[in-house]
């Protein structure tokens, strides 16, 4: 336990909060024990720090360029069309490594909880999976600047715990898994 406790000054309040979130998220991913625990870690980070309980992972099949639902929570993604959701340009940007964040989805602007984000999970310069965060909790109205740092962290540090060090070589051959509220929260 840290015995050198101190209080942060008011001027660094937001920075300190963000540092705490980032360090906790980084630690959680690094300490994951196996794929199942890593998936749980990602779910916990998204639920606790980003405020969403509808999310999923699409694995990129490098053989044919297709996307396969690898895991989802709170929503069934089997019929979800990533291309339709992002459009060609959007999907290409995500595949190039950019996060696609909609503070409030265009046609639903004004409604609460329509913000969504698509985060490329990267190994080196390759996107091996896409994390889709599809609906925010009612009390969280939109993504903020600090959330972008968490997206970057997930993008650069989630692949190894999720898919192992051979993530670039692995195909999308795992069975999809769907969970939902009530099973875990």
């Amino acid at each position, binding site marked *: *336990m*840290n015995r050198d*406790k*101190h*209080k*942060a000054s008011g001027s660094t*309040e937001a920075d*300190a*909060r963000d540092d*705490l*979130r980032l*360090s*906790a*998220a980084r*630690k*959680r991913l690094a*300490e994951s024990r196996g794929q199942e625990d890593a998936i749980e*870690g990602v779910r*916990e*980070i998204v*639920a*606790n*720090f*980003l*405020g969403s*309980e509808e999310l999923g992972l699409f694995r990129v099949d490098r053989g044919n360029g297709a996307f396969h639902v690898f895991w989802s929570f709170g929503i069934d993604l089997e019929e979800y069309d990533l291309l339709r959701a992002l459009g060609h340009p959007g999907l290409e940007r995500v595949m190039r490594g950019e996060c696609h964040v909609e503070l409030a989805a265009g046609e639903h602007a004004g409604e609460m909880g329509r913000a969504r984000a698509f985060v490329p999970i990267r190994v080196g310069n390759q996107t091996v999976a896409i994390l889709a965060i599809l609906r925010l*909790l*009612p*009390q*969280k109205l939109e993504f903020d600047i600090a959330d972008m740092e968490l997206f970057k962290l997930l993008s650069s540090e989630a692949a190894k715990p999720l898919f192992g060090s051979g993530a670039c070589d692995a195909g999308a051959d795992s069975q999809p898994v769907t969970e939902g509220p009530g099973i*875990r*929260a």
Partner: protein
Amino acid sequence: MTKKILVVDDSKTALMMEREILERRTTYQCVTASDGREAVEKAQQERPDLVLMDVVMPHMNGFEACKMMRQQASTREIPIVLVTTRGEEAYMEAGFQSGCNDYITKPIDSAELIALLQSYLGE
């Protein structure tokens, strides 16, 4: 005298974050439990000054643990703050009926959490 907070959550990520907030930004001592059943036992053993507890947990949820603590003389007076992703009024009402003193929703804002804790424990 250092105030002690029992932090209860089945999520390792949430526990890490809450513990970090308390240890780096307050003078409160932190003890942890990972489900409601363990929380009831730890509350009796540790006699914390406040319990900060998640609601949805395995074995025994936060509402049930809250009720149990309220039924026992040694833990009846301990302030309990429930933490949850669910912010609906009916859900919060159920929390208050279980005997909690306050409610905070995820994602946790550290400044809001510290202000809430200080309102019960002082700085």
